[in-house]
């Protein structure tokens, strides 16, 4: 394990007595796609929100590129190059796609005083337009986010996160509710980002086809603890994982 | 007709068409056969009762003058604006009358704190301002050449006269004094303290907000000062609450209510819970006779004749209606004295010489080179809920404006 881009060590999070995540650790290699899977209520989203600094952990450390970020506020993440998308869409609904993207690029608009004042700082605009093209949102550039259909809203979530030009991208169920054609497009996009452009991705997802296809490593959570970790193939055959998802008897006769 | 003409002018502003400002007459507001007077009073909102019928009284007096041939052959033409009894709207009304309607003189103001806001502008424009019934002491001291007021009563006189009456007629050594935390309260308290010192009487003061709902606290503190008399210088509602609380708490010393609180005597008796709250009770009055009494009956008759449909309504004529007469009389007298080719300067000179008894107010209207407050005399009436008996003598305040 070369030095990981992100390492989570003995993370424990509880909400008023209920321990949601217990002593959880993972290490994510740069340029790889690392999936977090597990049945509902396994603590996936809680871990995800803790890594993106929305929740405060009760114990444990989070280290990004050698620097401890456990106690930084979530507003500091974008500056470090950590971007996230939201499970049930937190778009700026009254604003247009372009303005959503400009806000995504907020940390890059602070360069010179000129940049701060400009409605459309030229350098940033070039990058944003590239992302808009790439995610197929070009025709909707001036449409208000709330007027987009669900599929395009999900794409905007992803595009806005990419506007941060992150080194680590945290995706919370990006494929939930998408049709197969859209999932295929997402598959190629994410693999290109990781393989070709060296972007590190942590993805929480239920759509197993996508997870198995794009992930380099998979970690399985159940009742807040890690029960398995490895390549997609290894995890697929692991009895503990099957048991967690499908229950005990099947595992015996299977 | 008048309303739509005004709307047209202002609508002109909306459409950004810039209406030409009228050409300057040789003397603003004067034509061969008319003198234009710009009147303003609270015609709406919470203080409607303080000014609406006062303005009507002044208008009806001018109509009578017009019927008797006007002034040197000129009819008085009145333009009336609603000043909503607040500073911003009053200044807007005054500027509209002076610059848009080009009136000869301003005749208005029932709310003292608001009329004071117009002082600067009126003096700068050199336009005469004769107040309606506002005491407006803030605009009368230091005296200016252009502003005359306190035709009802100066607030200084209100406060001072109450203390004077309580000390002299009721032999009170310690007086409990309740006023408001507004401009009125500041002026009447200043004079009361002045008179109290002169009469070697000490004063226990409680200032309450006009919107007070529970008067228990201020009343208890006054009772604790065990004063010989309770002097109430507030508006009608708080006054009634205090008198009712006094009766409930078995307060048996004399209670004196200032003219600002006597909105409607019959209603007052009902509001305080019946006549036994008024066993030892006096009210201050500035009219020359009991409301509706013989000396001022002609005013009420003129009102009925001039406004039949209004007087049919329950609430009219409002209590302060007769206060509109003395200021109208003063204007007419000064205009007559100023002669046929009247100018603002001549009119102002004549105003300063006025010294006449209007027959409506307790005291005469007296102006001089340095005096701008018309009436400083008050009388007191013993009132037991049904009949009123005048206490002989006129009472005023020793307070003088020290330059």
């Amino acid at each position: 394990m070369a030095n990981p881009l992100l390492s989570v060590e003995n993370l424990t999070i509880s909400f008023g007595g209920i321990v949601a995540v217990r002593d959880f650790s993972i290490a994510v290699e740069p340029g790889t796609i690392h999936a977090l899977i597990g049945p509902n209520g396994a603590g996936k989203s809680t871990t995800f929100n803790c890594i993106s600094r929305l929740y405060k952990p009760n114990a444990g450390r989070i280290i990004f590129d050698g620097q401890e970020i456990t106690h930084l506020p979530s507003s500091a993440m974008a500056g470090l190059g950590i971007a996230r998308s939201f499970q049930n869409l937190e778009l700026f609904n009254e604003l247009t796609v372009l303005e959503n993207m400009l806000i995504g690029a907020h940390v890059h608009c602070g360069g010179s005083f000129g940049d701060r004042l400009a409605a459309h700082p030229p350098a940033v605009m070039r990058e944003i337009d590239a992302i808009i093209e790439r995610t197929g949102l070009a025709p909707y550039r001036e449409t208000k986010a709330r007027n987009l259909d669900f599929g395009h809203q999900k794409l905007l979530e992803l595009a806005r996160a990419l506007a941060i030009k992150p080194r680590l991208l945290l995706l919370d169920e990006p494929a939930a509710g998408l049709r197969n054609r859209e999932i295929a497009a997402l598959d190629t996009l994410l693999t290109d980002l990781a393989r070709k452009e060296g972007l590190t991705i942590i993805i929480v997802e239920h759509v197993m086809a996508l997870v198995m296809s794009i992930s380099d490593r998979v970690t399985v959570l159940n009742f807040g603890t890690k029960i398995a970790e490895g390549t997609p193939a290894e995890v697929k055959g692991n009895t503990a994982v099957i048991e967690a998802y499908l229950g005990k008897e099947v595992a015996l006769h299977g | 007709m008048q309303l739509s003409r005004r709307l047209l002018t202002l609508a002109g502003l909306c459409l950004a068409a810039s209406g030409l400002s009228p050409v300057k007459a040789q003397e603003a507001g004067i034509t061969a056969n008319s003198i234009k007077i710009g009147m303003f009073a609270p015609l709406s909102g919470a203080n409607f009762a303080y000014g609406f019928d006062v303005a009507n009284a002044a208008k009806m007096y001018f109509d009578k003058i017009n019927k008797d041939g006007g002034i040197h052959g000129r009819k008085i033409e009145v333009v009336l604006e609603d000043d909503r009894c607040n500073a911003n709207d009053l200044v807007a009304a005054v500027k509209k009358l002076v610059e848009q309607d080009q009136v000869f003189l301003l005749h208005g103001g029932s709310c003292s704190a608001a009329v004071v806001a117009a002082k600067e502008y009126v003096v700068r424009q050199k336009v005469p301002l004769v107040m309606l019934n506002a005491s407006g002491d803030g605009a009368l001291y230091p005296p200016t050449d252009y502003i005359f007021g306190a035709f009802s009563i100066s607030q200084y006189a209100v406060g001072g006269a109450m203390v004077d009456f309580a000390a002299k007629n009721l032999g009170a050594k310690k007086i409990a004094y309740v006023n408001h935390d507004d401009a009125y309260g500041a002026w009447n308290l200043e004079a009361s303290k002045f008179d109290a010192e002169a009469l070697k009487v000490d004063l226990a003061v409680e200032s309450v907000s006009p919107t007070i709902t529970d008067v228990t606290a201020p009343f208890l503190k006054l009772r604790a000062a065990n004063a010989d008399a309770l002097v109430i210088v507030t508006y009608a509602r708080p006054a009634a609450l205090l008198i009712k609380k006094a009766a409930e708490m078995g307060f048996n010393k004399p209670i004196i209510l200032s003219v600002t609180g006597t909105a409607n005597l019959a209603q007052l008796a009902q509001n305080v819970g019946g006549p036994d709250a008024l066993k030892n009770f006096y009210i201050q009055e500035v009219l020359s006779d009991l409301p509706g009494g013989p000396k001022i009956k002609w005013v009420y008759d003129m009102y009925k004749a001039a406004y039949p449909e209004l007087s049919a309504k329950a609430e009219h004529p409002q209590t302060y209606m007769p206060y509109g007469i003395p200021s109208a009389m003063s204007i007419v007298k000064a205009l007559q004295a100023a002669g046929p080719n009247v100018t603002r300067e001549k009119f102002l000179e004549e105003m300063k010489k006025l010294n006449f008894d209007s027959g409506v107010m307790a005291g005469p209207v007296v102006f001089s080179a340095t005096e701008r407050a018309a009436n400083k005399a008050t009388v007191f009436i013993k009132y037991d809920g049904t009949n009123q008996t005048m206490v002989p003598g006129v009472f005023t305040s020793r307070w003088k404006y020290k330059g």
Partner: protein
Amino acid sequence: MDLELAILFLQQGLVSGLVIGSVYALLALSIVMIFKTSEVPNFAAGEVFMAAAYCALFLMVFRALPVWLAIPLTLATSFLVAALFRRGVLTQVAKASGSPVNLVIATLGLSYVLKGLVRRTGYGDTPRSFPALVSTDSVMIGQASLTRLDMAIFVAAVVVMAAVFWLFAYTKVGRSMRAVGMNPKAARLMGVNIERVHMLVWGLSAVISAIAALLIAPKILMTAEMGSVVTMAFAAAIVGGFTSLPGAVVGGFVIGIVENLVGLFISSRAIVVAPFLVIMLVLIFRPQGLFGGRFAIKKV
């Protein structure tokens, strides 16, 4: 201020505070009821209170109806006007944009319309007394003196509060009101007619304001501006947490007592500012008020 006088003031302050506080509590209840179910702070609560008092005065004094007929008529009219305003106006405003600011401005519009209407009748100018249904001779509790009317106000107010709590807690209508407050979408799925519940809540809130008006009118005299007492009720509702009915009641008594004690021990001029200082103090230390629900962490 010697000790003996201070004790007298304390007793009187508490007693008077409880009486006036019970009316503030009723008004605060009517405000919180509406806020709990529709997230709208009702800025017309004061004018509904005032208009109800004038409606009763009109029926009793100018139409000389007997009391047992005038009061139910007043309560019914208040219920109808409020329910119609909710159905006719607020539903459309909510549909049109649904942002709370617009709903607040609509209630502000209602307050101006009601004030304008009462003033056009001409009865709003000089202060008027409301025939006291209970005698006003005074009674002593400890060193504090009180009138029978005051006691009647306190008792009636407490009875009405109990009735409201009972309705909210134990009746079907009450449960549907709470459901609409917590989660309108889910309530609709459970077959609750949202619109009918909102009309009921607004109507009930107007009835409570009307009762508060009938109780307090003989004590504080009536003018078209008497609606300004609602600022105290807002203070009471805020202190109580603005989303809790018991909070509104406690808040009402707190504000009533604080108002009296400040008047007695500090200065009469400070009475007006006391409730605002209480609001700021409470909100600084407990942003959700004394009884308000804890801030839910936004589920992401």
